[in-house]
């Protein structure tokens, strides 16, 4: 295995990269707030667009950012 870089910090019980975290937060806030603001009409529509925006941000950041977990899998034979 290649030399592992140690540049992660522990937030909320899991390890994150500060730069990736800023990107993910930026994206989600931008899309959620943006969705809310550009929604046509008032009331529930704004909220729906906002939530969809947040989820879109979540999906984009999930694709862009690699989870910082090493998974070691073992199989039981019997």
């Amino acid at each position: 295995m290649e030399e592992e870089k140690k540049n992660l910090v522990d937030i909320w019980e899991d390890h994150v990269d500060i730069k990736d975290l800023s990107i993910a937060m930026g994206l989600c806030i931008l899309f959620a707030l943006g969705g809310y603001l550009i929604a046509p009409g008032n009331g529930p529509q704004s909220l729906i667009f906002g939530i969809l925006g947040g989820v879109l941000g979540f999906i984009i950041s999930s694709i862009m950012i690699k989870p910082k977990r090493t998974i070691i899998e073992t199989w039981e034979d019997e």
Partner: protein
Amino acid sequence: MDVMIIFQIVVAAILGAGLYTIIGIAPGTDETAVLAPVTIALALLGISPYVILAFFMSAIVAKKLTDSIPVAIAGIPGGVMAAPMVEHAMVLKSYGMPDVSIRKMSSGSVIGTLVSIPLSFLIANAILPFADKISSYSGLIFFLGTVFLALLSKNKILSLVIIVPFALLIQGLRHLYWGLEIIPSDSTVFVSFFLGITIGPIAFSLFELLNKDHRRKLPRLGNKEIHVNYSKKVKELPNPFKVLTKKESGTAALGSALGSITFFLTPVGMTVFLGEFLTRHIKDPVQRASRAISTMDALTNASYISGTLIPLIAIGLPLSPMAIGPAAGLFNAPPIFTPEHNIHHILSMGEIMLVSIIGATIALLITFYVTIKYATQICSFVFKYIPHEALIGLFAGLVVMLAFMDAGWINIFGVILVALVSGLLHRYGVNYGVMFMILYAAPWLLGLFS
């Protein structure tokens, strides 16, 4: 209720169970943070209260069934409530029995649900005659609740001292918004302050990262190592009552009953206390661990369900840690639900009962099947493809948006302020519950000074 509503209830329950099976497994997801915003959003969207209740009941049952799975497989709690189980699950894992853990925990959950739903209705009925008295003194009762939870906090003195200052922060911001005519004087800011408290601890840690000195001092870590153990495929679906021994079922049922009766106490505290207390006498480590995890899982489930249902049926005010936290949306999501007009007032007792039973049953059927069969697969999917950064980002996005919705741009900063203060208090041992209670008690409490 007509056929159309029942159909919607069933669909909502299926969606709730599916969504929260996945969220339950994601490590570190706090119950309040993942349940309350969604319930509140559903309420604000104008969705039928029947459907919201079914969704919520299904979601908590599913989340409670699944948040202990990563504990069994990887020793990582999937939620705050699963933390007490880590130690016992690790014992079973070290004996190479993570699949046994999962089956015992899931069966415990089933027992907890089955015991607590009927018991909640009995307890609620017993409280019902006093309900009018209780709700006419709601301000005072929230204040007494605050003091009560403060005395259960890790840091009792700070929790007591902070009651009035924290109420000042909440009411101060509200009066500022009224004074600046950002919101009309007949409306109030609730949801975003509530979420501010919820994300307090994590917001505080994030703001700390902005400090260079602090960043330099932090331990730098590599990837988090997670050991996933694949066990042989389960061919037949086990009967939850046969997975547990008679004694285990008995202790789980007893734990669930005690957890339901103490619905007004903090669920994590009760889980640790009763879970250890009921299993302390067992010598054999494997037997003790499996008794402990089945009991604890039953208990968390029971205290969650009863903490939601009893105040909902009997009083209509959020008078339990569960009701002021994760279930807050069922009691207060202004302008749709208010303490004077919420699910308690809209649905009859029989309707609440029927909808809860449908929601919980659907969640049990789907989630029990899925967890027993595919637990390891779902776990590795979540660990491999869902980055923690994206989850935190999503919470941040939703909180900022809801803050804006409540009272415009200025409230984004108001919520940051609330979050920082509550994060700091939380770090110094003030219970979440204390701050949530202050949020409800603040108008009455500060009214005393006028």
